[in-house]
């Protein structure tokens, strides 16, 4: 029997110990009328060899196209050591480190993670991760409302330059608790928050402003001015950032005069494979004064009975298993394994390596934009500084061009025409350090053909 070790004689002697006549007799408290007859909809079991073959065939169907997709999930090189260590059974098959004495490995790793991510974001404290970037934004909005000492407002400003999926997750998660999200449009020249529109909120009672940097279009916001304006208006500031970019860009802890109050983001770029959207992890850091309002697990360093350094979960009284209906969140799972991968990734790259990844991605995107925007019918949507993504506008339907590119084995970018119809036929492209000059040339050449094909049609 797969994964069940019992021999016939084991079963017999165990039943004798219990005093039961059969295994089925152990279900005698369940009403007979409720018993399952059969599970005809489930196929018969497969051996490891058979499932291996099936999965390899399905994987082959999906292939490995050349991808210029970004929009919140980024293809980066993952050092071999990262997953070789992360999938060790001692990490992979351990539980949440509630029994601290038997979980020092996981606990110390989390402490090291908290240190790295706090420093990267320029904040004082970090939790041990949340589900993903989208749910981290939702949790940050809830936390801001909870932590704001001077305002009881349930309103949070989340501009359209924030990832639309993050906005949707925030709405479906926090809307149930009465939070109201206000939007601010982007201005069309630089593709950043329309500051004049934002200023219309001055004088209103609002809990927080969300700022994404680089924003969803890859453009860089004027974070100092925005942060200071929001603080002046009595709001907390929530930063949503790409961790790779922070090797180059100003950390949220240093934005404006005082720095932001809560910082969140998608941790996937730090050593986590794209894997169709998950599992990823969301990170969250904050000021020390808000630590008790933060959701999720937190690890602290302390000493044992003999004075030796050790690590343990701390501030647990915030959490659902103790506070039940009054907890800061219902979250109990974090994304421990992904955080393990990220900690190893950051350790291997170090400050120089991460900066090299960020700089190379920046340069490749610049190269990509130059190569694509010179093609007839293509133009760059926004001026101003950007990181490793850019919006291009086409003079013909994006969807049709992307389908044409697929025929060349290229995923050319994300069609923005559904979420941002005001931008026209807009395409979001991304190049990370994984793209070579040859890849970019190949894309430009295929796009040239695709543009002709779509026009012809």
């Amino acid at each position, binding site marked *: 029997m797969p994964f069940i070790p019992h021999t016939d004689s084991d079963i017999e002697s165990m039943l004798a110990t219990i005093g039961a006549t059969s295994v089925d007799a152990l279900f005698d408290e369940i009403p007979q009328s409720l018993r399952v007859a059969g599970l005809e909809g489930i196929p018969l079991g497969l051996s490891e060899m058979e499932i291996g073959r099936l999965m390899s065939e399905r994987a082959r169907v999906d292939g490995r196209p050349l991808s210029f997709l970004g929009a919140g999930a980024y293809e980066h090189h993952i050092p071999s050591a990262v997953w070789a260590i992360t999938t060790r059974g001692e990490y992979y098959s351990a539980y949440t480190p509630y029994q601290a004495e038997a979980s020092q490995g996981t606990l110390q790793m989390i402490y090291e993670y908290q240190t790295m991510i706090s420093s990267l974001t320029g904040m004082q404290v970090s939790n041990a991760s949340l589900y993903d970037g989208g749910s981290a934004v939702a949790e940050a909005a809830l936390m801001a409302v909870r932590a704001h000492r001077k305002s009881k407002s349930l309103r949070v400003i989340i501009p359209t330059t924030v990832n639309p999926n993050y906005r949707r997750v925030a709405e479906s998660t926090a809307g149930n608790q009465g939070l109201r999200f206000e939007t601010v449009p982007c201005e069309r020249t630089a593709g950043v928050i329309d500051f004049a529109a934002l200023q219309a909120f001055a004088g209103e009672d609002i809990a927080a402003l969300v700022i994404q940097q680089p924003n969803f279009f890859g453009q860089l916001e004027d974070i100092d001015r925005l942060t200071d304006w929001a603080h002046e208006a009595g709001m907390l500031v929530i930063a949503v950032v790409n961790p790779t970019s922070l090797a180059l860009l100003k950390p949220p802890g240093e934005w404006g005069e005082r720095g932001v109050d809560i910082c969140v983001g998608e941790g996937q770029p730090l050593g986590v494979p794209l894997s169709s959207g998950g599992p990823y992890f969301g990170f969250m850091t904050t000021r020390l004064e808000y630590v*008790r309002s933060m959701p999720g697990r937190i690890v602290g360093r302390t000493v044992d009975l003999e004075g030796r350094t050790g690590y343990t979960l701390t501030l647990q009284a915030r959490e659902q298993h*103790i506070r039940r209906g009054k907890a800061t969140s219902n979250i109990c799972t974090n994304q421990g394994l992904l955080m393990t991968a990220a900690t190893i990734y950051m350790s291997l790259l170090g400050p120089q390596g991460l900066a090299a990844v960020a700089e190379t991605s920046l340069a490749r995107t610049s190269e990509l934009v130059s190569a694509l925007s010179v093609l007839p019918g293509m133009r760059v949507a926004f001026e101003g500084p950007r990181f490793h993504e850019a919006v291009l506008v086409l003079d013909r339907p994006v969807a049709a061009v992307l389908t044409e590119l697929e025929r060349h084995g290229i995923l050319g970018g994300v069609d923005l025409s559904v979420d941002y119809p005001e931008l026209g036929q807009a395409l979001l492209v991304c190049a990370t350090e994984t793209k070579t000059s040859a890849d970019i040339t190949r894309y430009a050449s295929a796009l040239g053909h695709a543009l002709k094909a779509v026009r012809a049609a």
Partner: protein
Amino acid sequence: MSQVPAELKYAKSHEWVRVLSDGRVEIGITDHAQSALGDLVFVDIPEVGRELAAGEACAVVESVKAASDVYTPIAGRVVESNAELATAPEQVNQDCYGSGWLLRLEPASADELAGLLSAEAYTELLAAQGN
């Protein structure tokens, strides 16, 4: 056996109330409550000026194994909070009826005090709960 000073009034939810000479009242948690919680690591006290209804949750006392709401036994406006507890929550464990007080209220009405438990009645309550 936990201490129950005779001169104080008590609530079933294990808070004590002391009437000060100026008519204001001081509120804290009882010896039984602090001992059941264990070593406190954090106390969240209300802001001065807040209006509280009787029975409203007004503070949180947190140990490593539990976090409990503290309910004000009577209505009133918060006139003072024990700021020292922010850095020294252990004072609640060490001296819950003295330096471990949580907040002081300007009571909305003096009548509510009569509805609280006497030391004797509170001792009986503890005994009935098996303490």
